[in-house]
């Protein structure tokens, strides 16, 4: 087993599985192209094969040296002590940080950004450890005003307004206010 740990094998298995899925799926679009004899599949398949080679090379490196960084490597993205997630509280907090943005993104279509944004901003502050309600309220208002001022008033950027009532009505009211504001000058 050398210095291989279960984590190294799981990591390699994930990449090999991804490579297998991409290779397998390439048969779905395996059509000839009249002007190019290698077709649409050659390039992705070469990339997949090289990914398998690199994964195996990485596994062999882990077998020899474990998780240690190779000598002379530069600009490693995330060096330093890593957080221990054995504490369920820490893990829950981290999972909440990872998935809150997804809930926000999922809400953009039905609810719209104008209504969802303040709740999202406040939630992220809370998850980042801010517990002073007054600070959360003030900073949420500040960020919301910056967002509206820059993207709605100054740049008139088209943003998701939602498609369900009463959220859509709220977005429509914000846009109406903006139009009235623009008409002032």
């Amino acid at each position, binding site marked *: 087993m050398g210095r291989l740990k279960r984590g190294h094998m799981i990591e390699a298995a994930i990449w090999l599985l991804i490579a297998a899925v991409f290779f397998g799926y390439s048969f779905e679009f395996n059509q000839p192209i*009249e002007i190019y004899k290698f077709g649409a599949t050659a390039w992705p398949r070469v990339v997949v094969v090289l990914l398998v080679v690199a994964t195996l090379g990485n596994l062999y490196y882990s077998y020899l040296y474990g998780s240690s960084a190779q000598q002379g490597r530069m600009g490693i993205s995330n060096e330093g002590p890593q957080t221990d997630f054995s504490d369920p509280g820490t893990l829950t907090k981290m999972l909440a940080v990872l998935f809150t943005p997804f809930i926000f993104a999922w809400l953009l279509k039905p609810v719209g950004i104008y209504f969802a944004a303040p709740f*999202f901003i406040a939630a992220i502050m809370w998850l*980042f450890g801010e517990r002073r309600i007054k600070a959360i309220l003030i900073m949420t208002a500040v960020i919301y005003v910056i967002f509206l001022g820059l993207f709605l008033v100054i740049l008139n950027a088209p943003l998701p307004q939602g498609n369900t009532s009463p959220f859509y009505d709220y977005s429509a009211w914000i846009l109406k206010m903006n139009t009235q504001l623009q008409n002032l000058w």
Partner: protein
Amino acid sequence: MIENFLAGSSALFGDPVTIAIFVFGVIGGMLFGAIPGVSMLTLAAILLPFTAGLTPAQGVMLFAVIYCTGTYGGAITAILFNIPGAPENAPTAFDGYPMTQQGKSGKAVGAAVLCSAIGGVSSALIMMAATEPLAQWAIRNIGPPEIFALVFFGLAVASSVGARTIWKGWMSVLIGLLIATIGQDPVGGINRYNFGVGDLAAGIAFVPAILGFFAVSEIFVQAERKAGGTYKAPKVSMSFPTFLELWMHKFAVLRSILVGFFCGILPGIGATLAAFMGYGEAVRWSKDKESFGKGNLEGVISSETANNAATGAAMIPLLALGLPGGALTAMMVAVFQMHDLQPGPLVFYTSPDLIWVVFAAMFYANLSILIIGLVETKTILNLLKIPFQFLAPLILMLATIGAYISRGLVLDVMVMFIAGILGYLLRRSGFSIPGIVLGLILGQIGEQNFAQGMQMVHYDLGTYFSRPICAILIAAGAVTLFANIYRAFAPAAQPR
């Protein structure tokens, strides 16, 4: 040339509306480049429809100015927050962010200001003097095989920095290349890997992926540190680099100007590869290779000089051949088309006024980086004083808008957050985020040029080696690759 430059300058500064657009472009580019979560591309995407109401010269000039100042602005967030404003600023973060952690943010930002200005001004001057002859040289000597060879070399360089091992470096690049295969294939337009999602037929857009991998993943990394109690607020410093410190790196500046200009001139390659190559060459020529990635000022200098040197050069294939060098120059093509113009050799004869207004504006925009940059640096450094729990939601909000705005798809916001989680997990495992992004950007360019090249040489791969530039680039890429593999398993390469 001087007469034309003066004519361009007087056209630029002789009309109050044009001056206002120039100033807006300079400040807007710097601001959007320097705000974490959005980038010059966000601003450009928002402004694109409005350019229909401007004259062609004003529209193209506005985008050219945003390109120059936005490329510099992205260095600020790379240095202060480890969030590159654009992919071309990614290598800047390798040494810039460690400098911030060491309390040397002022030195790093000061060097970025000066070197961006030097790189940009030099590039603008070469562009003015040599656009036509360089374009003719490029037409004669640079074809799809050479561009493919440069992509290969660039990816080999990218794989050698940023990841924990050479294998993870290559895996990072290959992950990027694999993501780039999603969408239509560049030769036959056949849908690949859309997994039944209709919107994926158009592929993974760069902007959301880049925002996710850089900005959102960094937020998650900081969240992890907060959750685990290991978060350290960055130290603010206002000390700029001394003249002597910068003078010591004069050769790095000169080398990066050449590297940046060469990369910028090649169609489709742009400033991103220039920055990686500039950084890679700085490491290659340095006597103290080990200090790179730990806060070496030369890392910031090389990357920032090279990416701004590429901005002027990127205008050459755009104006002379009609080929954009990156996302922003591609938007400039749209500005031309909105005004029934087509960039290409004829534009020098049909619209010389436009060309020289743009050249003059780029020259002055790069000078503005030096003047406004030094003044605004102290203000920008104060961003570090904002507690991260307030900065994080602002960055996420801006990133959400940045991801949504270019195509108006909620799917792009989803893609951004998926890229954020993926980036966070891969960073924890020692993969290189800049490597993934470069693979993503160069994937389609590489495939398209490989396919065109193979058609050109009738599928005889050996012909690639009979073309001198192509052979040299492939050999350089292969040497970089095998030297790294040798180092990975050589007895002296004990892990640290």
